[in-house]
């Protein structure tokens, strides 16, 4: 490339500088930080020399060489949920973070894919939401629901990230404790491709945009689990007659027991146990009980009401594995 006479080459070697001893490191290997120098930064290099001649000392300054740093397109997606998100009648809320690991401002298109091979069921994407208040919790009505067709992050500065919620509904047929996954993919809006692909003039500050090692596209899987519950109601009766023989004769008292057994990993909410008073019988006032604790008949502070019209006991929310028993008595007329 250049020819120099031997003494000068030696002089340079003595001075300790390297001549054509190129480092063999790959161009990307030095990318130690998620974000390097900001896109558009000018690298300006000038050398100055001092010297002596027979006439005294002098200084000389080189020309300035300038290189503009181009925009690196890189992105990282991570799943923030540590455990599978539960889905029941309400959608599962999967939490991801999307980070601009490039060195210039960039927006990223988002795509949520519920069809992952090997999963027990494919969820249905209800919506993709930006965590507008950045608290990591999905706040309906507060966080920004993205409209389909415009699923994208806002422009993120270098090293900045945004949390993204993906709301996933269970499909019909999903059974309790089945799990599935959803893949969220973020791609740089400027473009993606193999590392090194460049988009002329598309970078910050008028430089080029160059695809980094992440290919300017990244994705992460988050899991959801179906959390469903079933209820079985078992009714039984015991009879106490005035003669102690348990015969359904007039004047005998029949005590009905209604066992509400909830199974599954989920829970049921708003549960009521109701029953009517059989024909030919009369409700025994004050006989209503929930799990052996007496309830008053009137519509008051407790969970139940009882009377000639029947009984109604509100059980509220019951988690799987729990049985609540309602009992009441009638007298055979």
């Amino acid at each position, binding site marked *: 490339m*250049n020819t*120099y006479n031997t*003494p*000068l*080459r030696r*002089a*340079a070697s*003595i*001075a*300790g*500088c*390297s*001549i054509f001893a*190129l*480092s*063999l*490191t*790959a*161009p*990307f*290997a*030095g*990318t130690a930080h998620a*974000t*390097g*120098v900001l896109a558009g*930064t*000018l*690298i*300006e*290099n*000038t*050398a*100055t*020399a*001092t*010297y*002596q*001649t*027979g*006439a*005294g*000392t*002098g*200084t*000389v*300054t*080189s*020309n*300035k*060489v300038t*290189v*503009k*740093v*181009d925009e*690196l397109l890189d992105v990282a997606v991570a799943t923030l949920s540590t455990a599978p998100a539960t889905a029941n009648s309400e959608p599962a809320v999967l939490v991801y973070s999307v980070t601009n690991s490039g*060195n210039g401002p960039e927006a990223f298109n988002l795509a949520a894919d519920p069809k992952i091979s090997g999963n027990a069921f494919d969820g249905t994407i209800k919506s993709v939401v930006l965590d507008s208040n950045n608290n990591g919790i999905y706040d309906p009505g507060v966080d920004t629901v993205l409209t389909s067709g415009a699923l994208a992050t806002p422009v993120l500065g270098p090293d900045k990230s945004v949390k993204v919620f993906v709301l996933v509904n269970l499909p019909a047929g999903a059974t309790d404790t089945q799990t599935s996954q959803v893949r969220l993919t973020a791609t740089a809006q400027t473009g993606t491709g193999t590392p090194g692909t460049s988009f002329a003039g598309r970078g910050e500050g008028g430089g*080029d945009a*160059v695809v*980094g090692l992440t290919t300017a596209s990244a994705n992460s899987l988050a899991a959801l689990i179906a959390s469903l519950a079933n209820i079985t109601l078992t009714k039984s009766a015991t009879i106490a007659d005035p003669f102690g023989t348990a015969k359904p004769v007039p004047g005998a008292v029949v005590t009905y027991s209604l066992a509400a057994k909830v199974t599954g990993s989920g829970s049921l909410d708003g549960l009521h146990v109701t029953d009517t008073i059989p024909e030919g019988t009369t409700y025994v006032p004050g006989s209503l009980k929930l799990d052996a604790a007496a309830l008053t008949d009137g519509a008051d502070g407790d969970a139940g009401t009882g009377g000639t019209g029947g009984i109604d006991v509100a059980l509220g929310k019951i988690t799987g594995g729990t049985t609540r028993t309602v009992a009441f008595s009638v007298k055979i007329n």
Partner: protein
Amino acid sequence: MKLSFLVKSLAGAAAMVAMAGPALAAAQSAPSPVSLKGDVMLEKTVSENGVSKVQLVEPKVVIPGDHLLFTTRYRNEGTQAVTNFVVTNPLPSAVTLSSDAAPGTEVSVDGGKTWGQLGSLKVEAAEGGERAATAADITHVRWTIPSIAPGASGEVQYHGIVR
């Protein structure tokens, strides 16, 4: 106006005298007998038949992590030897010296105030006290060329990595 003209003309005279005889000191504005020419190239690793090698290409596209080779060429265009030729190069803030860049080159980690081999230099640690300086701390590099004969030329180089 008159004064500046006078200074200029004196300087010119001094330079001419300096060329003619070694007895007089060259004024600051005298044309330097040495030229310095800077250049930068991008070191691109290419793989051919499984063997990777480095090519120097024009730095058209430069991104963080790229390796740049900065070269400063010097040439003694005068008629006398130039001695104790010290080339000082402040590193652009966006560039860190590659650790294998120039073994033996004197470096500074304090903006050019003190100099030495990297291994002997210390910087203030973030948590207090001192720590050994690393390549990322280097602010300046310099080379000393003992003597450049009239008409002779050479070059100094450093390898930098875009931060």
